[in-house]
C-alpha cells in the first residue's frame, strides 16, 4: 500500500516536470501539443475511490496550470477525464471483473484493451481541453484537427512509455 502511494507520488512529480519543461516546448506546425501528464490518471489503481480520483485530477491539472499560466484550464479537463474513467473502466471490464492486485497496464490486460481504454480517455481529455481553450465554434474543424493530432501523439507516447518505463 505504502509502495503504491510512494510510486504514485513520484509519478505525479516526474510527469508534471516532464510536461512543463519538455513537452510544453514541443510544437510541430502549431497543431500537435502532446499532454502526456494524463498518463497519471490512466495508471491509477482500479480500486482508487471516486473522491480521490477527482481530487487527484484537480491537483494534477492545477499544477500544470500554474506553470503554463492557464488557471483552471487543465484542471477542468483532467477532472472531466477522471470523472468518466470509472465508466470507461466498467465498459471495458473483462467478464469476471478486474483481478485484485493488478493495474491498468498492457502487462496485465493486453495491448488491445489498454489501447481502447487510453484512447477514449485521452480523446475525452483533449476534446474538453482544446474546446474550452478556444471557446467558440467558428474554427470548429481547425480545432478538431488539433485535437485528433495531439491526442494521437499523446497516445503514442503513452503506449511507448508502457514498453520502456513501466515494464514490470
Amino acid at each position: 500500500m505504502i509502495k503504491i502511494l510512494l510510486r504514485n507520488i513520484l509519478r505525479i512529480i516526474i510527469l508534471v516536470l516532464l510536461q512543463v519543461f519538455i513537452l510544453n516546448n514541443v510544437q510541430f506546425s502549431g497543431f500537435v501539443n502532446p499532454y502526456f501528464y494524463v498518463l497519471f490518471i490512466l495508471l491509477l489503481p482500479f480500486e482508487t475511490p471516486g473522491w480521490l480520483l477527482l481530487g487527484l485530477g484537480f491537483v494534477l491539472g492545477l499544477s500544470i496550470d500554474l506553470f503554463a499560466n492557464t488557471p483552471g484550464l487543465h484542471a477542468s479537463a483532467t477532472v472531466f477525464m477522471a470523472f468518466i474513467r470509472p465508466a470507461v473502466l466498467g465498459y471495458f471490464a473483462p467478464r469476471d471483473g478486474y483481478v485484485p492486485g493488478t493495474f491498468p497496464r498492457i502487462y496485465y490486460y493486453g495491448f488491445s484493451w489498454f489501447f481502447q481504454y487510453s484512447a477514449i480517455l485521452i480523446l475525452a481529455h483533449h476534446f474538453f481541453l482544446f474546446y474550452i481553450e478556444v471557446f467558440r465554434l467558428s474554427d470548429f474543424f481547425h480545432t478538431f484537427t488539433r485535437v485528433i493530432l495531439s491526442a494521437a501523439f499523446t497516445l503514442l507516447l503513452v503506449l511507448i512509455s508502457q514498453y520502456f518505463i513501466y515494464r514490470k
Partner: protein
Amino acid sequence: MRNLLRFILSNHFVLLFILFETIALILVFQKNNYQNAIAFNISRNISGYINTKTHSLREYLSLREANIALHEENRVLRNELFSSYKSQVPLAEDIEFEEAWERRYNYIPARVISTSVNKQNNFMSLDKGSVHGIEPDMAVVSGSGVVGVVTGVSDNFSTVLPLLNIDLRISSKLKDTGYFGSLYWDGRDPTKATLTDIPHHVTLNSGDSVVTSGLSAIFPEGIMVGTITDFEIAGGNFWSVNVSLATDFRKLNHVYVIQDLFRDELLELERAEGYD
C-alpha cells in the same frame, strides 16, 4: 435531513465532479481576478525562479542567433545616433539637444524566461518585476517589433500578454498612408496576424509595413508590427489584411519594456475629460 445526507453520500462522485469542475471553470473565465490572486502571485515567483534556471540553458543554445540580432539592432541604432548626422543648417549646432527635447519613453531591458506559441491564449514571463520599475499596461517590444503588453507584476517577475493571444488587439496603422485599424491574432499560425478595419478604398500592396498607431496609451507610435502578405475583402467595406509578424515569437530572448514617462499625465487628462 437524513435523506439529504444519504443523497449526498450516494451521489458524492457526481456532486464532487460538479464542484471541482465549477471551481476550475470559474478560474478559467475569471481572467482578471486571478492576476491579483495571492496564490498565483506566489506561484509566479516560484515558477519564475524555476523557469529562469531552465531558460538559461535554452538561451545558451541560441547565443549565436541572439548575438547576430543584437549586433544588427546596434547597427541600426548607431546610424540613428545624433552624432552620426551632420548639420545642414549653419546655426543648428548651437542648439543644445537636451533643451529642445524632453525624454518621453524609457526602455527597460528584460529577458523572456518562459513563453509558448502553441495555445490560443499564450503567455510569456519576464525576469524583471516591480522593483525594476515595471508596471501593468506597459508595452513590450523586441529588437525587431511588437511583442505584447505587461499584465501582471510581482517583485521580480512579470507576465506578458503577447500578440499571440486571441484576447489582445493592437491599434496599428499602415506606415505609408496612415490609415489605422485593429490587429489581432487568429489563433493559428504564430508568424501571422490579421489587420481589420482598413477601409476598402485604401490601396494596399503586399510588402507594405504595418506599425503601431500610437492611438492607445500603451504603445508608442511607429513601432514595427509586420509586413502585409495578402489581403481580401471582408464583410462590408473593409479589408481583411494578413500581416506577417516582424517578431519571431518562437525564438524570443531579449525584449524591452517601454515605460511612458507621460502616461499618468495623459490618462489623468483623459479621465478628467470623461473618456474611458
